[in-house]
C-alpha cells in the first residue's frame, strides 16, 4: 500500500487530537518550548525587508536540533508563519504539501477564523527570547504529522508517522515530565527557575552504568518508572547547585 501524507485520524475530522493545548488558558507557561508550539506577536524579519513584522509562528525545528547541548535553547530557532487557512478536510491531507493544516486552532471562533495553517515557504529564524506568547502546543499525533509534512516539503520523502513517533516519544515525554515536575515543585514553593534547574539536573543525574533518567526515557519500557519516580522526587529533591539565570 503506497504511503501518502497522512490525515490525523482516517476519515474523522476530530481536530482536537492534533493539539495538547489551545489558548493561553490551556497553555502552561513552564512547559519547555517544543516543536509545533505556536507563538503570537513574534517579531520576524523577512529576507531583504527593512523592518521586522509581528507574526504568529510555529516552531518547526526538530526538538533535538533546538537544544544542541541538551537543555538550553539554540540561539536561532526555525519557525514557519501561521495564517488563517480554509479547513483542510481529512481526505485532502495527502495534498497541501507546503503547509501544516491547523484546523480549529482557534476554537473560540465560529467563522473561518477558526482554521489556520503553518506555511513552510514562509519561514524565519528567531531568537528564543522572542517566543514569549505561546498560544498552542501540539499533541504527539500533531507533532508527528508536522514532522512528516515538513520532511516531505524539505526532502520529498514520506516517512510514516509511526516511525517518527519512535524518535519523538522520548523527547515529548521529557517535555511532559518537566511540566509535571514544575507543577509539583511550584506548588511546594519553588520558583519556576528553581524548578527547571532541579528537573534538568535530576534528569541528567548520573545513575548506575552511566545511565541517566533522560537516557532511560528512550526506552518505552522504562518511561512509567521514571514518571513515578519524578512525581515523588519533585516535591523535595533539590539540585546540588543553585540555578543560574536564563536556564530555560
Amino acid at each position, binding site marked *: 500500500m503506497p504511503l501518502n501524507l497522512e490525515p490525523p485520524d482516517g476519515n474523522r475530522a476530530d481536530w482536537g487530537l492534533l493539539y495538547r493545548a489551545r489558548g493561553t488558558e*490551556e497553555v502552561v507557561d513552564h512547559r519547555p518550548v517544543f516543536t509545533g508550539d505556536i507563538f503570537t506577536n513574534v517579531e520576524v524579519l523577512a529576507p531583504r525587508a527593512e523592518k521586522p513584522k509581528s507574526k504568529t509562528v510555529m516552531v518547526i525545528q526538530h526538538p533535538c536540533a533546538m537544544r544542541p547541548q541538551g537543555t538550553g535553547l539554540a540561539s536561532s530557532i526555525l519557525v514557519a508563519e501561521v495564517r488563517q487557512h480554509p479547513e483542510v478536510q481529512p481526505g485532502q491531507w495527502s495534498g497541501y504539501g507546503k503547509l501544516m493544516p491547523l484546523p480549529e486552532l482557534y476554537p473560540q471562533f465560529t467563522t473561518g477564523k477558526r482554521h489556520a495553517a503553518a506555511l513552510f515557504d514562509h519561514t524565519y529564524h528567531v531568537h528564543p527570547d522572542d517566543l514569549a506568547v505561546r498560544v498552542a502546543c501540539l499533541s*504527539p499525533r500533531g507533532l508527528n504529522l508536522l514532522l512528516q509534512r515538513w520532511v516531505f516539503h524539505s526532502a520529498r520523502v514520506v516517512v510514516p508517522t509511526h516511525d517518527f*513517533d519512535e524518535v519523538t516519544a522520548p523527547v515529548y515525554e521529557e517535555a511532559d515530565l518537566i511540566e509535571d515536575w514544575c507543577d509539583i515543585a511550584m506548588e511546594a514553593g519553588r520558583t519556576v527557575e528553581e524548578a527547571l534547574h532541579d528537573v534538568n539536573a535530576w534528569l541528567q543525574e548520573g545513575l548506575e552504568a552511566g545511565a541517566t533518567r533522560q537516557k532511560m526515557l528512550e526506552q*518505552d*519500557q522504562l*518511561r512509567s518508572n521514571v514518571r513515578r519516580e519524578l512525581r515523588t522526587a519533585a516535591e523535595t529533591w533539590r539540585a546540588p547547585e543553585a540555578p543560574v539565570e536564563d536556564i530555560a
Partner: protein
Amino acid sequence: MTDTSGLTTVDQGTASAGITPAPTLPETGLPSVSQLREHAGVLDTQASLLRADTSELHGDLVMREWGVKTTELVRLDVPQLLAELADLGFAWRSIAQLIGVSVPAVQKWRRGGSVSGESRTNTAAVVAACRLIEESYVVFGLARWFECPILPGVPVTPLDLYISKKINLVFLLASGKTDPVQVLDVFDPDWRDTYRSEFEVFQADDGVALRRREQ
C-alpha cells in the same frame, strides 16, 4: 440480559449447542483404529466448542465485573481516581486519552474543577479496568504494559485498544490466553500493511534517529 426475576443472567454459549454425542464404542471386542480415530475426532470437536463457549462466557463475565467495579468507583472523587492512575505511572496525556478528553481538562479536574457525569464515569471505568487487570492477571507494571507495543515492531499498544473501545481485547490480552497476533488481526486486519516501514530507529551521536532499513 435480564431474566424475569430482574437478576442479571449470563449468556448461554451457542457453540456447544451443536455438539453431537460421540459415537458409542462397541461394548464387546476391541474397537478398530478407525473407530478410535473417529471417536477422538468427535471428542476433540466437542472440546473445541466447549472451549469457545467458556471463553465467551469468561469474556462476558469480565466485562460484567468491569461494569460493576466502574459503578462502585463512580462514587469516589475524580482527583482521587486521577491520583491512583498517576501513582501507577501513567502519563497525563495517556490518562486524558483513556478518558477521552484533553490534557488541560484533566489538569483542571485535578485542581477540583467540575466534571461532567460522562467524564466521571469514564474516569472510573479506567481505574476499574486497571484494578481488574491487577487483581485478576499477572501484569507487572501496569502503566508500562498499557504503553508498550503488543508485538515488537508494531506500534499498537493496549492503550490504543482501550481508546478504540476494544476493551474486551485489553482484558483478553492481559489474561495471556491469546496470541497477540490474533488480537492485532481483530483490531486492524490490515495491520501488516498499515505498519510496514522502510525505516528503522538507530542511536545517533546526539540521540535516537531514523534511517532507511537495509533490504
